[in-house]
């Protein structure tokens, strides 16, 4: 299947040439909420990159051809210099996306972000009502604050998205949130992939195959034929480490922010050196050789493999199968659980 949109064509070329078109930058691991599924609660919180260091990194990324930057955390708004960091990135002509819980967004900050010309703002909602949302976010009053932030962003003309992770703790809230997005005049983005917060075991909040079916059906997912990929390669492999990279608050460069394979650190080396390093080349070579259970799986056409989730579920075996993603592929394939070829 040939790439269709300009964005897909550009991404394909970037991936082939290892041009890091998109970078996800985690500005801090600090957070003012305590969300139930957070996988960053136990990460080491070393010295964070300064605004000046980030600006230098943006300059380097722009030179290597990066166009899209996503800022997340932790909660990125906890950085007092957040607006300065966004401003620094915009001075290098990046398309900026922000992912936040929204609770610290003020009218003034929203105006500043709109004036800076960010592309979009994603606000995390666990549920469509304050009772469940606040419980899952670990803080009373957070729903009202996030909703207020959403309205401020929409009013300021920022493309705004409700971001939602479908899990066993909030199953079926996606329908209500989709309606809420329509009512509030914003977009809705959700998925059922939950990154495990304990190493080596699938997330206890990951939905099962039947729930995936209900979810996909309710969300009117595209006809199943659209999920078939052109080749096994496209099905099982991703752009991590090629057209996609992640940078954590301490300056570690990883192939994708969910795949913590350290390629180098920006306090010690330039981005270009890291992106061309033996570690990066080794990762790309390994990425071509996934576990044979995936390569030979009977429903691989429906798989949307995520090496990051596989890494966390298996305590490091990112080339192996992920039970969470097998469930999704199974739901996609429309097979009953016992017909699934267990990877």
């Amino acid at each position: 299947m040939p790439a269709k949109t300009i964005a897909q064509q550009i991404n394909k070329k970037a991936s082939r040439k290892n041009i890091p078109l998109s970078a996800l930058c985690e500005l801090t691991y600090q957070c003012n909420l305590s969300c139930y599924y957070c996988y960053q609660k136990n990460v080491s919180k070393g010295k964070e990159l300064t605004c000046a260091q980030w600006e230098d990194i943006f300059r380097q990324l722009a030179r290597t051809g990066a166009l899209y930057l996503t800022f997340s955390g932790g909660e990125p708004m906890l950085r007092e210099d957040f607006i300065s960091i966004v401003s620094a990135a915009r001075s290098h002509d990046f398309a900026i996306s922000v992912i936040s819980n929204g609770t610290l967004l003020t009218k003034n900050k929203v105006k500043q972000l709109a004036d800076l010309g960010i592309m979009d703002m994603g606000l995390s909602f666990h549920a469509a009502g304050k009772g469940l949302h606040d419980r899952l976010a670990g803080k009373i009053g957070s729903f009202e604050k996030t909703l207020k932030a959403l309205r401020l962003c929409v009013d300021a003309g920022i493309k705004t998205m409700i971001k939602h992770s479908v899990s066993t703790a909030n199953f079926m809230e996606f329908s209500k949130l989709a309606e809420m997005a329509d009512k509030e005049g914003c977009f809705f983005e959700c998925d059922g992939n939950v990154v495990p917060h304990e190493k080596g075991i699938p997330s206890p909040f990951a939905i099962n195959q039947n729930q995936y079916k209900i979810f996909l059906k309710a969300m009117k997912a595209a006809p199943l034929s659209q999920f078939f990929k052109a080749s096994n390669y496209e099905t099982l492999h991703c752009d991590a480490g090629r057209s996609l990279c992640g940078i954590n608050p301490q300056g570690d460069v990883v192939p994708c922010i969910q795949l913590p394979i350290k390629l180098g650190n920006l306090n010690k080396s330039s981005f270009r050196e890291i992106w061309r390093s033996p570690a990066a080349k080794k990762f790309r070579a390994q990425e071509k050789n996934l576990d044979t259970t995936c390569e030979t799986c009977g429903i691989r056409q429906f798989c949307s493999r995520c090496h990051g989730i596989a890494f966390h579920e298996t305590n490091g075996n990112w080339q192996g199968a992920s039970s969470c993603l097998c469930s999704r592929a199974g739901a996609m394939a429309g097979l009953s659980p016992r017909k699934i070829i267990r990877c």
Partner: protein
Amino acid sequence: MALSPAIIVSRSTRIAQRLFEERMLVISAQDSKLHRFNEVGTFIWQLLEKPATVGAICAAIEEHFDGFDAGKSFQEISDFLVSLEKKKCVSICPQKQ
């Protein structure tokens, strides 16, 4: 309708851009869509690093590209600039009196 040569065109401040394989990629915050320009479009976009009149843009194109008749292509260039304005990538202002 073609733009007047005296019309001033300037880039929007709410765009993202990158040169990719010698072609300019531009995204407007208005619609988040990615636009890829051809060789002439890329040249025009680079001229717009500073605001320029339509006439100056046409003259620069004629000088840069062999066999390019700006007179004959004025409408085409004009249409391109108007399409950029619709995408909120540029703003078009009448020349100061």
